[in-house]
């Protein structure tokens, strides 16, 4: 049973429940609205409505799973960084479960804080930027399936969104726009510099990233996650495309703005970069979403290079996928806490002079492999 069927059963049951009400109301008030209630009940039971509601429920389930994962990620990051730094990390809040509840406590703290909109900001952009940032990041997750049975699919057969990988990367690339918007509209010199840095940085890593993804498409011959993962049945793409995998990890690190590449929010130089003027839950959204993007990056690396949900059948596919995504995330966070930040001209050098040729080389290797018929 896949997620669509599961959701479909629930929705059909719910629609039946509600339709009983409609038809009962129609019986009860026949003199004016009887026809209307019957019509509404019929509409609710129609195939189109049930399909739409099912997809919405699927999205809800996927998002809840994603948010729980994000909480795990934040906890894991704090705990891991604490041990790297020779202290305990979260400890007291949720003592029995290793301080897991600290995230909830922090979220509540941010939630009750006052949301200040500074006087001279460009109000529309200032309010819109977090919305774009958060929604585009959630959009990535909507397309990433945890297994062939667990993802947002559109029919009973469990077919996912066509060209889901392309969609995920398109959604991934929206965020710098919202960062630029936030930086510009905050009316602050630091946020402005942060926003501009984000735009410059995007130029440098987005192209190698997509070139590497293109090589994956070349080998798998498919744009959807299921196709890409199925193509890795024999060997993970990380092995033939090792160079590409490294380039991909570096670009993902830049995409989710972890330390060697967190120029837009460089804490020591630009105070907090483009998030300087945000406070309360708006800042909380940024904070949570950056980890959400870390999760998305880990999931993409898993699906594209590490064989996705494939693994020995001892544990379910979904768990395999999450374990791999967590491992990628841990490596990225480990790097984050170990190295200094690069400079803005150095990241451009790195992107154009190092990553770009490597990505091209990787594409050539992929083409050669494909031509020789090994994939």
């Amino acid at each position, binding site marked *: 049973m896949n997620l669509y069927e599961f959701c479909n059963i629930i929705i059909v049951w719910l629609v039946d429940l509600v339709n009983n009400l409609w038809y009962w109301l129609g019986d009860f008030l026949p003199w004016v609205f009887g026809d209307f209630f019957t019509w509404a009940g019929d509409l609710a039971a129609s195939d189109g409505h049930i399909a739409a509601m099912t997809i919405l429920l699927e999205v809800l389930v996927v998002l809840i799973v994603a948010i729980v994962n994000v909480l795990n990620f934040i906890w894991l990051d704090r705990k891991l960084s604490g*041990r*790297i*730094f*020779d202290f*305990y990390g979260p*400890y007291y809040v949720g003592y029995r479960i290793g301080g897991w509840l600290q995230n909830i406590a922090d979220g509540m703290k941010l939630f009750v804080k006052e949301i200040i909109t500074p006087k001279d900001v460009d109000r529309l952009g200032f309010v819109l930027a977090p919305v774009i940032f958060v929604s585009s990041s959630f959009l990535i997750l909507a397309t990433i399936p945890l297994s062939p049975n667990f993802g947002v699919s559109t029919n009973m057969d469990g077919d996912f969104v066509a060209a889901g990988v392309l969609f995920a990367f398109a959604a991934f690339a929206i965020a710098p726009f919202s960062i630029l918007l936030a930086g510009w509209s905050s009316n602050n010199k630091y946020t402005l510099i942060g926003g501009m840095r984000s735009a410059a940085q995007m130029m440098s890593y987005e192209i190698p990233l997509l070139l590497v993804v293109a090589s994956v498409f070349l080998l798998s011959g498919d744009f959807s996650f299921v196709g890409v993962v199925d193509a890795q049945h024999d060997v993970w793409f990380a092995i033939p495309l090792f160079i590409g995998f490294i380039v991909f990890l570096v670009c993902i690190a830049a995409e989710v703005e972890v330390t060697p590449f967190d120029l837009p929010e460089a804490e020591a130089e630009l105070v907090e970069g483009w998030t300087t003027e945000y406070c309360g839950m708006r800042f909380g959204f940024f904070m949570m979403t950056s980890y959400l993007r870390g999760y998305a990056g880990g999931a993409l690396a898993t699906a594209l290079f590490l064989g996705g949900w494939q693994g020995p059948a001892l544990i379910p596919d979904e768990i395999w996928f999450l374990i791999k995504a967590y491992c990628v995330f841990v490596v990225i966070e*480990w*790097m984050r*806490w*170990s190295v200094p930040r690069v400079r803005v001209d150095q990241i451009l050098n790195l992107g154009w002079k190092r990553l770009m040729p490597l990505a091209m080389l990787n594409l050539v290797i992929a083409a050669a492999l494909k031509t020789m018929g090994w994939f």
Partner: protein
Amino acid sequence: MAEAERGKVSFFGYVLRPMMRTGKQLVRSLVLGKPNTVLYPHQKLVLPQVYRGKHTLDFKKCIGCGNCVTICPNDCMWLEKLEDPELGKIERPGVDLGRCLFCGFCAEVCPTCALHMTTEFELAGGDRESFKLGPKDIRDDGFAGSFKEERTKRAVPTLDLSKCTGCEKCAGECPEMCIAMISMDKVGRKKPEINLAKCSSQGKCAAVCPEKALTMTEVYESYFEMPQPKFVLESCSGCGACARACPAEVIYMLEMPGTEKTLKDGKKGKPKKRAVFVLEKCVGCGRCFKVCKFEAIEMPGVSK
């Protein structure tokens, strides 16, 4: 790193070498041992004895000289008059922890080591008034005995001038030749003056004293040069206020023979008195100077 290799780090140096180093620390604090943190409210560090925390005062050892008040750089101590059932009317210092620097000068200058600083450091309070600790708040009579003294002690002869007859036996017995007999103006006696810097604490002077005026007592060595009172005999009226004010029993009121007034009935009255200072015992608090109304005591560096 040699000059030639400057700036040249291997390819792994981008992230792998620092990551290996932090990974070692991760293993060290996760697998091999525990993190370095002290979980504060539950575990506490062992602080050394010399730690300077909250003050504590031994009422029985304190003589109320107020040297701690004088030396405090921030003026955060004061003397408070108290009525103690055991000790009677006394003056003891209190401290305002809200202004305290925790420099420890008060404990260092205390001539009897009555004032100490404990290792207690959790001193947070709700308002400024709660930091003002009076003498009774910092009283802890047993504290001084509870740990080893940091400051060095030595036994020196102390003179009780009221018993001294000026027989000069002690001066003859002293192996270091540090006792000099000084004649006291208009008293007609001599008193031994002991050079404590040369004293070797053998106690021969105290053993030989027929009146038991010299006794060996242990005093704490002080490295602070305190102001010493200078006496002007001509101005002294013999009122004895300084002797009553002195916390260290330095000042003795001695009669001056030959100054008796002849009363109307022909008898002679009591002779006039003058103050005599036994400066070896002086702690330099300046209280005699402050109470003297006739400007018979001068103390450079101390304001009234």
